[in-house]
Structures are given as C-alpha cells and as structure tokens.
C-alpha cells in the first residue's frame, strides 16, 4: 500500500508594507484530451497540420450539422477521473456557453456546466520528502477547444485557423487549496505527470495542450483556517482570475505579481474588484481584460442537439481494471523493491519513459543491484544524454546494454572507473559490453598474486614514500593510486587497498 503520511507545507507568507498576508489559489487546468478525432466530429486532432485542413463542417459551425460524441474522449475523461481518485458520474450532460469570437464559429462552446462527467477527487502534491499538499478536485468536465487566431500576419486583419476548434478538452477544477506560487506550479506538474502516465493528455505546454487559469486572492493569516472549518468563502478575499497561462514559470510569476498587486490595493484602503486578468510575461505584470468582462453573460443552457451522456458502471470498471501504475505507486514501489532514495525514485518516475527504461535495466540485473542501476541511469546515462541533447527514447545505449554494464560491475568483473570507459564505448560505438570487456582486456584484476607483485614492485622502488607512509597511514592511498596506474585501472581497488595496507604493516 501507498504510504500517504505527510505533513502539509507551510503557506507562503508575503510581507506587505503594513502587515503579513497569505495567498489562496485555485486552478482551472485545461488539458487537451489525447485522441485521434475531435470531441464531436471525425476530424483529426493532429497538431501542426495545414490551416483549416482538420476541419469537419460540424467544427466550422455549418448550418444543419449535428455533433456526435467521440467515445474515445469520454473514456479518456473517465480514465483521468479514476487516476485522480474521483467520482465518475454515470450520467452527465452538455450545455452551451454562448459568446462570439472569430475562432468559435458555432457561436457557443459545448461544455458541461451543470452535470460534469467527473466529480470530486484529489491530487497529492509533494513539495519535499514527507511534505505534501492535498489538493481537492471539484470536478472535471469535457468541453470543446476553440480555434486559433493569428494577429501578426497582417496589420489590419486577424487570421483564423479552425484546426483546434472542437478538439476535446478536460477542464480540471481544483478547490482553493493551494497556498503559494511554487505549490501551484507543482500541482500543474503533478496533474501533467499523472495524465502522461494515463496517456490522456500529452502535457505539451508549449503547443498549448495544457493551460491553466489561476484564481488568486489574499487573506490575513488565520482567515484561511476559518474558511477550512466552515467552507464559507466569506473568510477569504475577493479573487481575480488570470487567464490562459501555458508555462509553469509564468504561472508562478503571475501569482506572485497578482498577490502583491492585491496587497498594495488593500493596504491602501482600497478593495479588489473581481475580474479576469491577463499575464504579460514581457512586462511581468497582470492587466485587466475588460473587453471580456462586458460579454461575461454566457447564457448557459442544455444543448438541445445532445442527449445526456449515460455510461455503464461495467464500462467504467473495465477502464479502472486496466489503469496503469500511477507515479506515486511506482515511486513507492521503486523505493521498497530497490531501496532507492526518495529523491532517486522521484527522478526516475518523473517521466514515464524514464521509469520504463529503468525497469528494463533492472530486468537485466539482480534486485540487489537496483540502486546501482539507478545511479547509472541517473548519473551516467541522463548526464550523457543531456550533453547530446537527446531524449531517453533516442538513447544509443539500450536498457539491456546498460543492465549488462551494471551486472559486470556488480560481479566485480570491472571497476567503476573502467565501467565509465566501457559505458562511453557502448554509447559511441555500440556492442555487447561483456564482449568488449573481454576483447579489450578491460577485466578487473582480482588475482591477488598479480596485484601483490605490482605492490611489491612499487614498495621496492619508493623506500622514501614507505617511510613517510609508516608515519602517516593516510599516504597508503598514494600506493593504491600507483598500483592502479601500473595495472591500467584494472586492479580491484578494494583488493589493492587491502594488500597495500598489509604490506606496509599499517
């Protein structure tokens, strides 16, 4: 079982000009659902296609076209809900959110305001070993994405591409449980990690496949605890919503700026106006989006083109039975089975591809060498790949090859130093590690007779050093170094050490 004992992190405190303030943050994360086709049409979701080529007439809002829901999108939303330990609503329904914008040809977005497909769940956001924030999820609903407007191709016109129009999004709404900018970024990171494990969203923030709206308010220390007791928002400050951020760094910067802006207003005796704001990364500030405010009346109503979405418990159970192992479980298992540290297990499970690679390496070694294998994956392999700017998928060293290197070290066939040379050879030239060791004479000398001979030779040639070492036993290291040099690094350092100290009578 997963060990879920952790302490909550301390909330971030901002020192204003007059007093101390705390932050209260809630997020709406928009995650593009990984499917082949769109939510209500058979057009492709592929990124980067020619403009307006992934568009069905449904997406273009042509008269008389009717939406038909993509079952794959429903399954992905259910999968995500299960991954966040959330309730699945067997009956949900779609509503129209009405507004006009050039990238929304229907004139409304089909969403789920009143009856979302996923209800309450939770995410555990680890901030340090044993320190984590439990963030409650309020709901997840399915909705359509809008198209893309490009404003810089013509001085007087905006260009509109409807390829993204109608692609399925999951909007994941959290409770206001997040208490600082770092926590907010870590929360988005955790959601991203879970969804990537589940395969429900690729988490590509650069392409806009994962974006967040952040609600920020400030309160005085103690007020948040009153809210927690009563769930009465009256204890919290007025919030502002910062729209549409697609970078962890921007999320943190925007929250930091927005909190300070609100504190300055409040300490000046002013009050916060609830509004939607935009973050400008160039200026590092948020500003009001008044134009959107004016049209904020979305006149939601049930979409008459769509019947309620009814799914079977057996279908949900089947999805649940096939859920992959999630990051928290994988990490706990790595720690328990291979004795990895919290940090190492965290590094290896951060990305699913890394975890899969590590497990494949471990398959080639004994369980007791899991920790050694982890060191090699994290320090040697990741370091080397980073140097070449390669992803794990493009690693020139296969898990089988790396596993063999680790096994050779573990058996005592090669020393750690030689292993690094061997790794470099496998990385650049390829080949079977054991064969390379054999062919190039890299095998460690464990034959004590050979080592003794080398030690004797060095002792005989350096009488002055021997005298010094007898005064200062630390100098034995010098002899070990000389022996290693004389044997081309192939002597077993532990054996050398033992023989040297013995012969010097230390």
């Amino acid at each position, binding site marked *: 079982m997963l060990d879920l004992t952790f302490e909550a992190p301390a909330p971030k405190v901002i020192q204003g000009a007059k007093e101390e303030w705390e932050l209260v943050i809630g997020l709406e994360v928009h995650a593009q659902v990984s499917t082949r086709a769109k939510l209500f049409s058979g057009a492709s979701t592929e990124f980067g296609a020619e403009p*307006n080529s992934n568009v069905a007439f449904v997406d273009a809002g042509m008269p008389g076209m009717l939406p*038909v829901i993509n079952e794959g999108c*429903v399954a992905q939303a259910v999968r995500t809900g299960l991954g966040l330990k959330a309730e699945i609503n067997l009956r949900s329904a779609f509503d129209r959110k009405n507004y006009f914008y050039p990238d929304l040809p229907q004139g409304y977005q089909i969403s789920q305001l009143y009856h979302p497909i996923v209800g309450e769940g939770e995410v555990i956001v680890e901030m340090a070993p044993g320190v984590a924030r439990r963030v409650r999820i309020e709901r997840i609903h399915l909705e359509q994405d809008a198209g893309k407007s490009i404003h810089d191709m013509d001085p007087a016109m905006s260009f509109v591409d409807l390829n993204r129009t109608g692609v399925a999004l999951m909007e994941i709404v959290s409770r206001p449980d997040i208490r600082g900018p770092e926590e907010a970024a870590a929360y988005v990171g955790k959601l991203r990690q879970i969804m990537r494990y589940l395969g429900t969203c690729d988490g590509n923030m650069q392409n806009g496949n994962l974006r967040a709206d952040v609600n920020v308010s400030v309160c005085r220390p103690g007020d948040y605890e009153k809210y927690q007791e009563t769930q009465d928002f009256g204890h919290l400050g007025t919030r502002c919503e910062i729209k549409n951020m697609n970078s962890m760094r921007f999320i943190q910067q925007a929250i930091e700026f927005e909190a300070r802006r609100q504190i300055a207003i409040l300490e000046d005796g002013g009050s916060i106006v609830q509004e939607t704001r935009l973050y400008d990364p160039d200026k590092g500030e948020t500003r009001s989006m008044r134009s959107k405010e004016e049209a904020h009346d979305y006149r939601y109503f049930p979409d008459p083109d769509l019947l309620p979405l009814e799914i079977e418990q057996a279908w949900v159970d089947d999805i649940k039975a096939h859920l992959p192992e999630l990051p928290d479980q994988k990490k706990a298992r790595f720690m328990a089975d291979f004795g990895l540290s919290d940090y190492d297990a965290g590094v290896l499970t951060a990305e699913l591809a890394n975890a899969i690679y590590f497990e494949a390496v471990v398959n080639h070694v004994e369980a007791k060498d899991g920790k050694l294998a982890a060191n090699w994956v994290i320090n040697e392999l990741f370091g080397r790949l980073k140097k070449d700017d390669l992803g794990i998928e493009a690693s020139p060293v296969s898990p089988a090859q790396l596993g063999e290197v680790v096994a050779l070290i573990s058996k005592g066939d090669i020393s750690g130093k030689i292993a690094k040379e061997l790794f470099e050879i496998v990385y650049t030239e390829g080949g079977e590690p054991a064969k390379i060791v054999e062919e190039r004479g890299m095998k460690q000398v464990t034959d004590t007779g050979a080592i003794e001979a080398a030690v004797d030779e060095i002792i005989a040639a350096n009488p002055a050093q021997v005298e010094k070492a007898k005064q200062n036993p630390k100098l034995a290291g010098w002899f070990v170094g000389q022996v290693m040099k004389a044997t081309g690094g192939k002597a077993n350092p532990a054996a050398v050490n033992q023989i040297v100290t013995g012969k010097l009578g230390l």
Partner: protein
Amino acid sequence: MSIDTDTARRVAKLARIRVEEEALPALASEFNTILGFIEQLNEVDVDGVEPMTSVTPMHLKRRDDVVTDGSQPEKVLANAPDAREGFFAVPKVVE
C-alpha cells in the same frame, strides 16, 4: 419577470443583432408577452417530475475514435468573405 428597454438592448447586443434605439420599447414589450405566456406554465405542478431533455426514446449515439472527416480546406473556406493563405481573414481582434 419584466423586461425593460435596457435589458432588451443588452440581449440584442449579446446576440449581436442590431436593434435601433426607437425599436427597443416595442421589442421589450414583445419579450414580456412571450415571457408572460411561458409563466403560465408555472401553474402546472411538476413536483417530483424529472426534467425532460428530449422526447426521443433513445440514448446518446457515440462515434468511435477514428478520423473520418476533414482534409477539405477549400470547402471549409468556400463561404468565407475573406480568406488568405488557407486562413479565414477577419477584422483585427486583439485583447
């Protein structure tokens, strides 16, 4: 519920329908007639009756997750008042 000329103006704006100022009182009055008719329905006791979303006795039809449509940009753009380089071209909209 009663609709005044301000509400009528707002509704027209939200629906992007141009209504001249002098036509607003008449529009508001028409709204009120319609709403008055609808309010009559409130006289029916629907306690314990589940809201009906459709009169068709069927479940929501679903499609498989396969690409069956698209690759027709020229048709998609055929009715656009202005299109350039594969995009719809519209008067500049910038936040």
